[in-house]
């Protein structure tokens, strides 16, 4: 599904160049639930952004679903994101003035799906995450756990091959964290590849595999 070969990435900060990823090699197979762990500054967020086509990389090769992702145009990246990837963020990043249903339906808007169908599918996914009754609520009327479930429904609606979750439980208490992880595992059981970035070992331990990053390199993989 995902194949990275010696990915390198540096940021220009003023006159200095800071190398964040110093050659990442890894393969994530279809249907895997993988955790990426590392202390802050280890490059885990950058790696996730590269995986999510939200950021480009300098060297190496990235193959997603058998297609090369190097040097994509903005437009092509947007299309691949729309077709293959779903995102879940630490701070949910729901659009505050849209209802839960509209937030979930948004990715389909960018795929040109008709409104009626969008609404129906969004409601189906909200039902799936147990929030059908909250469809018409605005994000600020919901709890953190509920917001994250809406965000997960939004990530799922476009039928992605991979879900990339950046600290999905970072803003949640331990009970809701477990709920969210349970939901992610359920989704994973349906065959969707999930990559979770986290610094909490309890969360990472619930995954099939942990990739540890340190100083821009992978420390070692374990099952």
């Amino acid at each position, binding site marked *: 599904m995902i194949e990275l070969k010696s990915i390198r990435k540096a940021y220009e900060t003023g006159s200095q160049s800071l190398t964040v990823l110093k050659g990442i090699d890894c393969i994530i197979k279809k249907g895997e639930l993988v955790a990426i762990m590392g202390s802050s500054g280890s490059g885990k*967020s*950058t790696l996730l*952004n590269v995986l*999510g086509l*939200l*950021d480009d990389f300098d060297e190496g090769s990235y193959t997603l679903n058998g297609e090369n992702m190097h040097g994509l145009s*903005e*437009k092509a990246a*947007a*299309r691949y*994101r*729309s*077709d293959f990837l779903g*995102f879940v*963020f*630490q*701070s949910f*990043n*729901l*659009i*505050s*003035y*849209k209802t839960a249903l*509209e937030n979930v339906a*948004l*990715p389909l*808007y*960018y*795929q040109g799906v008709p*409104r009626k169908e969008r609404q129906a599918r969004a409601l189906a996914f909200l039902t799936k995450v147990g929030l059908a009754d909250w469809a018409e609520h605005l994000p600020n009327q919901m709890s953190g756990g509920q917001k994250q479930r809406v965000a997960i429904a*939004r990530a799922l609606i*476009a039928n992605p091959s991979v879900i990339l979750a950046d600290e999905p439980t970072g803003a949640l208490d331990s009970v809701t964290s477990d709920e969210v992880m349970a939901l992610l595992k359920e989704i994973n059981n349906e065959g969707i590849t999930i990559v979770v970035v986290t610094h909490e070992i309890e969360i990472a331990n619930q995954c099939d595999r942990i990739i540890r990053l340190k100083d821009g390199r992978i420390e070692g993989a374990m099952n």
Partner: protein
Amino acid sequence: MVDRDTWLEIFHTVLSNPLRTGLTGLSIALGIFILVVMQGLGAGLESGVKQTFGDDAVNFIRVETGNAQLAYRGRKPNRSIELHNDEVQAIQNELDSVPSFSRFVFRWGSTVRHGNEQGSYGLRGVDPDQCQIGQVHLTSGRFVNNRDVDQNRKSAVIGGQILEDLFPKGTTPDQAVGAFVSVRGIQFVDVGVFNQTGSRWENRSVYIPFSTAQKLFSNSDVVSRVSIGTGDATIRETRARTTSLTTWLKNLLVVHPDDAEGVWVMNRNEEAEIYEQIFDGIRLFVWFVGMMTLLAGAMGVANIMAIVVRERTKEIGVRKALGATSGSIVAQIVQEAVFLMMISGCIGLLAGTWLLQGIAPFVEHDFFSNPRVDFRSALLALGVLIFVGVISAIGPALRAVSIRPVEALRDE
């Protein structure tokens, strides 16, 4: 392409922050409002002044006489100068061929009566050419013709206001033609009705044949005024003709060449040009102020757009992560800006028009009347504002989409 989904999306975002939307809209509406009102007041001033001074055509020369101030060739100072029929004939001979020519006899405050109704109006004895020189707009019947003048006929052409004042309510101009009207106690036949648009004094006048007027209402062969049409002659040509006519006429009437008041030869071409220059000045001023207002409005819009886009950086990042292309985001922001500006611009336009129409009945004055909106320039202003708005939205929008989603989404 703007389909229903796009509209809903626009509505949603525009309405999501009522205060922000309200302030942006207010600055645009106010800009257009001020422009419309300024424009309307300028137009009102112009039409008011034009009504008072400019109800004749402008391509003619007017000859009148007054009091000679200077002694000349044995004649005393401060004497009254008059034009008589034989002198007018001499003028006509001197000019040989002119596009149009009319003599005048005026009798102000003439009682005109029809049935039991009567009123006081201006009486003008004229030649047929006055129809052309005065640009008399006939709504029915005909003007004074040559046979009227040759046969001293008692034909009258009445102004629309007289029709309204003296005839039963609802009488059409056609119905009035052929009716008898009494002018200064003598029966005339109404042969025509005229209506000068936007003119208050003209429509309170009666035209009758010059010869009839002189014979019935004047005890002498004095001519009050002569109007000489200048056709397509240029300002320079009419100016030369005015000068030579003045010299020639002063000689004929024995008036000192330096006398300022004995003989009046007024070139309406030149007067009109002076008015035109004044109005050009006013228009320029109005446009200048309007443009400055627009500029201020546009800067406000640009400013707000920059803030709006900045505020929404994160949202833009989310949308990109969800599959939006940069193009679609820029298009959305621009559409929102245009939509907002169209709506608030139209509100400003309507409010300005409404105000002008509301005050119009209360501000009638000699130099101010009928303030109206120049719709074309208001739309032009709106267009300019939208253009500026789009330009000012595109800048920040492009900057916003050039920010990588990563940075947009970064929490701290």
